[in-house]
């Protein structure tokens, strides 16, 4: 427990310190929301009562979670590059506890970002939710974040070179975001896109959040939840296994 708390505390301390990074990490999703929302929103509405900006709102929260969780997990790669990982690995503590602490720390900071976004959407009347809806959306946010942190730790543990980060950015993070139904509705997709989108776990996370936020959603919420739980379990196991195999 002490180990988990120590690793968690490190993430929180770094997060609190770096206001610039916080703002920077919020800027891209905000840009997507405003630019795409206003741009496409001018000639496209999801339904007469749901503007395009309101439609992509939960998708942008998902984007923020995906990016911050993946970046946070990939920090393992930087810790290796800067040698701090040696300090962690030579300590008399279990690696499982290290992964758990790192994950919880990153999930915490990602959820703070996501919640700030959510509050902004609420303030802008783009989403509506009550306390139950908020708790539901938190569950989905947690699952999205924890899953992608696990996935990122699995990747980062396998890599030795920080240049691999670019690879993950282009071949994992971006495709997962763009093929998730964050920016487009899931009904009436062409076959190939439908396959890719339906195989993407983030699709179910965003769909679950849309349900929790009282918006238009595609799948039954229990299906969303089940898919995410399975994905979370798989990525957590993958992350823990890869991290244990890693050498400093």
């Amino acid at each position, binding site marked *: 427990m002490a180990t988990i708390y120590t690793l968690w505390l490190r993430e929180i*301390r*770094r997060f609190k310190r770096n206001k610039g990074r916080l703002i920077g990490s919020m800027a891209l999703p905000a840009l997507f929301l405003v630019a795409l929302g206003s741009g496409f929103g001018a000639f496209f509405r999801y339904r007469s009562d749901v503007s395009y900006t309101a439609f992509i709102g939960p998708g942008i929260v998902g984007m923020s979670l995906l990016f911050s969780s993946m970046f946070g997990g990939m920090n393992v790669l930087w810790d290796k590059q*800067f*040698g701090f990982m*040696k*300090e962690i*690995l030579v*300590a*008399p*503590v279990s690696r499982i506890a290290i992964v758990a602490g790192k994950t919880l720390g990153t999930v915490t900071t990602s959820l703070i970002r996501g919640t700030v976004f959510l509050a902004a959407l609420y303030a802008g009347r783009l989403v509506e939710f009550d306390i139950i809806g908020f708790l539901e959306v938190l569950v989905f946010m947690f699952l999205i974040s924890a899953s992608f942190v696990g996935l990122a730790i699995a990747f980062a543990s396998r890599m030795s070179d920080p240049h691999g980060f670019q690879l993950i950015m282009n071949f994992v993070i971006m495709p997962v975001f763009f093929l998730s139904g964050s920016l487009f509705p899931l009904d009436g997709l062409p076959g190939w896109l439908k396959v890719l989108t339906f195989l993407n776990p983030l699709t179910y996370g965003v769909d679950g959040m849309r349900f929790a936020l009282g918006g238009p959603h595609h799948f039954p919420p229990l299906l969303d939840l089940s898919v995410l739980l399975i994905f979370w379990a798989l990525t957590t196991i993958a992350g823990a296994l890869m991290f244990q195999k890693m050498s400093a």
Partner: protein
Amino acid sequence: MLIRRRAGIASEIIVVKGLGKNFGSLTALHDLDLAIKEGELFGLLGPNGAGKTTLISILATILPPTRGSATICGHDIRHNQHEVRRSIGIVFQDPSLDDELTGAENLDFHARLYGLDTRARLSRMEEVLALVDLEDRRNDLVKTYSGGMRRRLEMARGLMHHPHVLFLDEPTLGLDPQTRRKIWNHILTLKDTFGMTVILTTHYMDEADHLCSAIAIMDHGQIVALDTPDALKSQLGGDVVYLETSPLDKEFVKDLRDAQEVTNVSIHDNILALTVAKGESFIPIAFDAAARFGVTISGVSMRKPNLEDVFIKITGREIRDEAVSTPKERIRVYSWGKRR
């Protein structure tokens, strides 16, 4: 090869038996046998690539050995990893601090990982910060520290859990001479304060000579010599006195060659190199002889043997200094840091 220290049967804190490491087809460590006494400041001296860091990494349980075994404080490095890790502190060759935390936060992180309670965390932080003179910079971010300060902070961190054995892997690599001196003083102070066993690797001969009570010279993954610095140097037979005379007087040379103190004479052009037990007392004798033969000595110099000479004698070549690449590596690493 079996090298065993003669003294200290009772208090051996590190015992290495037949320890070897292969990286693919490359043998980084040949089967090493080594015993290190408690309280020693033990130096592993050798060129880069000699296997010093490999040996330390294996002892610190971050690299598994290919064969053989080793114990630290009686704990086996393969089977009792947590116990070994609790009994050692280590300062790695490459930086291993979190730049985005303060000095105090780096220490706090370490203390928590090693399970210290709040009171011990606070009191030991004071203790180790005072030891390395970083009290006034504790709340600054590590990224604002100089190279020497980082090293000192890493040393302080390695001490927080009061290890029995402290490993220092090239503690002064890439530091300026003044900072090196300071680090040396810190190493000696903390050894005296805690009475711990310190194992340090270095490829600086003067560093090993100045600090260590025992030295193992490593080359190509093997220990080629092991003794106290003085004993190693005395293998060379003493000081070398150089006399410059012209012209070279044969009688004078013969007289010196026959002198009791002289063990070896060699002549290069008009310079005489004489190996003697004690150079300081031999020089006046040489001048007396010169006066007797009417020889004018136009120049004199003397060299105390150093570990470099020992290394050359044992391996037949100079220690290769390939360390130049390392500071560059570090600069690269630090500049990456800004992009994080």
